[in-house]
């Protein structure tokens, strides 16, 4: 009996020591909220070296923009130290009062990034990557090349298009393009814009909510055309090599991917260090070369081949259409209802 008791105590003690060891080695945890896309590469390029620098354990919260922002709202801005969001959702977070201003003195690398990335939403988070929303299509399946946004309405594409859902970053852009097709400003005349959205319904098989969903739709042959963000292009072409990025005469739409520090961050100083680290030329160079994210740091130098998938270079950036998310967020509830009426009836 005594022997068994001793053995049990030894086992419990060993388990307790093992459980306590990581806590002793890494005194604090740092929580990053991001998409989970390209997880292995991000672990290697950002997380492992940052953990060595900060003597902390980095843990993650993953999910799409809306899910993670919603979770942050439920926790009233707590539980996360830095959050990656596209500018549409970071603007929403700012309006909800979930983020704190960035102390730019603690992030000297901000001075090295493109002007439009430094403070895209005022005193809040900078953009760490710039992207485009455009059209991708399977060149083997679509007869005539797609050269303008209006081509999405072409009759030969019936039942073969997937649009981003209205609740995603790119979804409301469909409404704006529909407004442009109708010759109106969608904010001013949503009736006319949504009449054009209704016109595209026969072409749409389904709307997607995540980039992975869209890639699946292409790889299973369900669709041949979609609106997409350029960060998904590499994986999409790996799955379906005949998919190409359409060269649109009326221009792609810019998206800025931001990093913000929530109001409830428990490691504010570390969060600023993280921002500075991610914006450094070395990290940005590696992220671009490895096909993870387009760079915003002016010091990044890419070959033509390396730059091919990215929104990179002054000329390309100057040709992008910009979005104003303040009126978009103000109209979003109405747009979601109208969109549901058009696609869900």
């Amino acid at each position: 009996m005594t022997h068994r008791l001793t053995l049990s105590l030894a086992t419990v003690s060993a388990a307790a020591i093992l459980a306590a060891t990581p806590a002793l080695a890494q005194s604090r945890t740092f929580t990053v909220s991001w998409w989970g896309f390209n997880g292995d590469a991000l672990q290697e390029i950002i997380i492992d070296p940052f953990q060595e620098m900060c003597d902390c354990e980095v843990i993650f919260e993953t999910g799409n923009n809306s899910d993670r922002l919603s979770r942050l709202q439920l926790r009233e801005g707590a539980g996360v130290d830095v959050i990656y969001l596209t500018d549409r959702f970071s603007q929403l977070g700012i309006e909800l009062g979930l983020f704190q201003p960035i102390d730019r003195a603690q992030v000297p690398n901000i001075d090295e990034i493109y002007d439009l990335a430094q403070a895209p939403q005022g005193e809040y988070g900078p953009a760490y990557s710039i992207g485009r929303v455009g059209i991708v299509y399977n060149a083997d399946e679509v007869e005539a090349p797609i050269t303008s946004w209006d081509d999405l309405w072409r009759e030969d594409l019936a039942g073969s298009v997937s649009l981003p859902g209205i609740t995603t970053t790119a979804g409301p852009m469909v409404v704006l393009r529909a407004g442009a097709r109708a010759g109106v400003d969608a904010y001013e005349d949503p009736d006319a814009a949504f009449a054009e959205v209704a016109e595209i319904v026969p072409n749409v098989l389904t709307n997607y909510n995540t980039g992975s969903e869209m890639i699946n739709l292409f790889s299973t042959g369900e669709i041949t055309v979609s609106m997409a963000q350029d960060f998904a292009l590499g994986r999409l072409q790996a799955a379906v090599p005949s998919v190409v990025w359409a060269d649109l005469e009326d221009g792609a739409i810019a998206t800025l991917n931001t990093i913000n520090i929530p109001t409830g961050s428990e490691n504010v100083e570390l969060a600023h260090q993280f921002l500075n680290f991610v914006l450094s030329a070395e990290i940005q160079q590696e992220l671009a070369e490895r096909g993870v994210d387009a760079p915003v740091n002016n010091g990044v130098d890419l070959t033509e081949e390396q730059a091919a998938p990215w929104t990179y270079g002054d000329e390309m950036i100057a040709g992008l259409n910009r979005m104003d998310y303040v009126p978009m967020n103000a109209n979003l509830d109405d747009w979601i209802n109208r969109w549901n009426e058009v696609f869900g009836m």
Partner: protein
Amino acid sequence: MKRLAGWMLSSPATLAVSLFLIIPVAATISATFTSPGGTFAPYGEFFASGFQRTVLWRTFEVAAITTVISLILGLLTAYVVSRSPPWMKSVLVILAVFPLLTGVVVRSFAWLIILGRNGVLNNTLEWLGVIERPMALLYSQTSVVIALIYIFIPLMILVLIGVLENIPDDLLQASSSLGASPTATFLQITLPLATPGLIVGAVLVFTASFTSYATPHLLGGTRQMMMGTFLHQRAMVSFDWVSASTVAAIMVVVIVTTVLVMTRIAKRLNPMAS
């Protein structure tokens, strides 16, 4: 004393149900009665929208069709299993339960592979020369119903096997020896005695189908929105918690009403059914 002991024994379960079910549901629903527009304003807004009425009706329709087909297929399967020799019965029960060992998302994905444009079904039909080009089968109400039946029918089968096994053979033999045909025996003896199991199975399948999220999301897409996916949109995307709570409250009301109606039908068909 006996009564007190009964209360004491059931109190932990009662406390758990109150803490983890009744209080959260009540708190969720209470938010819909305190909106600035008035006590029932969120409900008025919900039913004023043609789209939201469509979503509710579509969800009810999908859940009802799934339940009816699961009842028919489940009853036939359970009948065969319950009448099989013991060794075969074990094998058949394992086969019936096997799908439950994987998650709903995996089972829904399986149907993406089967029903896809380049999927098993389209490829087979093309190979057989039945169709010339692949059909668009996904993102339709039919694909959602097929997947829901596949996902929830094991519940129905398991419940019905238990009920059918408990019907005494003597009764069936007596019916047969009094001249009833196998069909008459099934309709007049087996079916009424199986009613409690049918009701329990129907309630399980209906409730699970009505509240499902992953399968309608994956196989129905945004064009076949159901109450679960709509609730997610209202809560997690629009950040409109009152509207989301209203959807949740309506779902609770529909489910409770359906259960009550089914129980009443069961009592009518079989007065001994509880």
